[in-house]
């Protein structure tokens, strides 16, 4: 009896198979998430920029270590990045934000600035998008440190700001990171 059953089983097993599939396709795997993250922000009142003469440039500067772009995962998979800045000024002065990026050896990898002109104490909004792709992206991946400098230029009349001066200078910013993750 087994002799009779076995051939039937064999036929069954042989005819059952996995057809029209190609597992090598998994190698084509590519997912492309877009990640957004808040970056730097500040909000300072006009009174923070007091200076007695009313004629000097007030400079505030700070920097931070940022090795995020150096992470292996980011190095391997980041294909495009955009840094978006929005500066809102309601102080009756010119402001300029200089953003400078440095690599591990202190070399400059990228720099740009955002200038915002006043409109009395009305809010003036300036935006800036810094795109990192190809060479500039490689530079971003070498970035270890970011320096932000905010400069306030004196008014033509040379009037210093005091505790009663109106307005604020604000910055909001975010990074949009475009990844392409594949199996390689």
């Amino acid at each position, binding site marked *: *009896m*087994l002799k009779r*059953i076995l051939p039937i*089983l064999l036929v*069954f097993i042989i*005819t*059952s*198979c*996995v*057809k*029209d*599939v*190609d*597992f090598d*396709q*998994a190698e*084509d*795997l*590519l*997912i492309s*998430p*877009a*990640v*957004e*993250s*808040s*970056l*730097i*922000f*500040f*909000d*300072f009142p006009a009174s*923070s920029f007091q200076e007695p003469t009313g004629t000097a440039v007030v400079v*505030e*500067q*700070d*920097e*931070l*270590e*940022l090795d995020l772009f150096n992470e292996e*995962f980011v190095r391997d998979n980041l294909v495009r990045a955009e840094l*978006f800045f*929005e500066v809102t000024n309601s102080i009756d002065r010119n402001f300029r934000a200089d953003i400078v990026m440095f690599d591990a050896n202190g070399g400059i990898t990228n720099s740009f600035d955002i200038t915002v002109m006043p409109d009395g104490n009305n809010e003036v909004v300036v935006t800036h998008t810094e795109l990192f792709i190809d060479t500039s992206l490689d530079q971003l991946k070498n970035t270890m440190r970011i320096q*932000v400098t*905010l400069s306030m230029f004196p008014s033509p009349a040379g009037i210093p700001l005091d505790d009663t001066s109106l307005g604020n200078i604000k910055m*909001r*910013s*975010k990074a*949009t*990171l475009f*990844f392409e*993750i*594949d*199996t390689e």
Partner: protein
Amino acid sequence: MKKISIIILLFSCFVYGQNKQLLYNFTDIPQSLLSNPGAEVNYKWHVGIPLLSHIHANAGASGTSVYDLFADNGIDFNEKLRRVVYSMNKNDFFTVNQQLEIFSGGFAIGPSYEKNKYLSFGLYQEMDLHLYFPKDYAVLAYEGNRDNIGRVFDLSDLNAKGELISVLHVGLTTKLNKKWTYGFRGKIYSSLLNFKSTNNKGSFVTQEGTNNFYYHTFDLDLAFQTSGFASLVDLENEGQNDWNGKAIKELRKRVLFGGNLGLGLDVGFTYHPKEQWTVTGSIQDLGFIHHTKDVETYTLKGEYTFEGVNPLFPNNGSGQTADEYWQEIEDTFDDLFELDTITKNYTSWRSPKLNGSVSYKYGKKVLKECNCTAEDGDYLNEVGLQIYAIGRPRRPQTAVTAFYYRRLFSFLSGKVTYTADTFSKTNIGLGISSHIGNVNFYIMADNLLEYQNLAKANYASVQLGFNYIFPATKK
């Protein structure tokens, strides 16, 4: 990341369930006692052919199939992947179940004039994996958060457990009278490997911010419990092959009482309200394993809301520099995402299984010599309905089966099943059991409609085995 995605892809190829609707109450086969210790078997004794008495594996995935993802149809793989990711929901699951009987046997006991009890025993190895589709993790990995501002990613979507165990069992089946048969089976589990991550909580969300563009809120309460893995990872070795050998040797040591131990119970009955009617029911694997040896639990716990770096300028506000501020944020993130490894005992519950059936027997054999039915013979046909349920972390998975059993010849019987469950509404299965001399061979396969191309099936199973059975003589 790459490795994980490949593992997930592989997972979707080999996916298994546990329903043994073909074997259930197929009392020609001794292994039917494993799904119902109260099955009405009629042997003097039996012994399973070692390592060949019960080989079981069944495959399925709810929500997708291998074909959906790997069809060689010219559609871009990533498009197919996208469809799969979006068509599945968090309650879709993959499970792998495999069993191999190492030895088994049984014999009738009781007074010689009426041996109404049957003692059966054995040792089998079982692997069980169950993984829900981590939908929100998949979407987050697939899309990122940019297009999902305001969407709360639910971290409880990660829900998986898996185990490799050996089960030593002894069962006693008692035929109380013509109507009632009941049975119990006690089990000692020895866990070779176990992992469990079934009580995760928390969320990740990116929302419109006030001071900056976004708030990113992390609320993590994740745990991954393991036993049996840490010592394997730490095995001293001279290369991969050496490690493989040592790991297998180590696992073998755990088969008989060497692992983390647990206890379990099966109960079941068969009842004939009328001669031709049969009602059965059973519960399997009411049990637990207590993990005390070689345990490691990894946890991620904490809450944090990030909205960017501020203040920038030291002489304004806090006097903190941006770098100090950022350092603090980095430290917080490191703490948040640092896996804490703790050694803590834990208990894993086995997935209990419930079976039930109602059936009707009819049609006795027509004897040629008198053209009449054999009064003392068995009925040749049986039709009925079966239900099945298995407890899983979120909710039980259930199946309904209609079956037809037929004794074809004295040496051959067969069972056809039609099953509707989470995987498929059109699952037809076929099982046969042959008795040649005292050798019993059985083979059963599931989802025959998809057999032409298993890749398209959500589910398929196969079970086969050899036993040596010495049947009870007819009184």
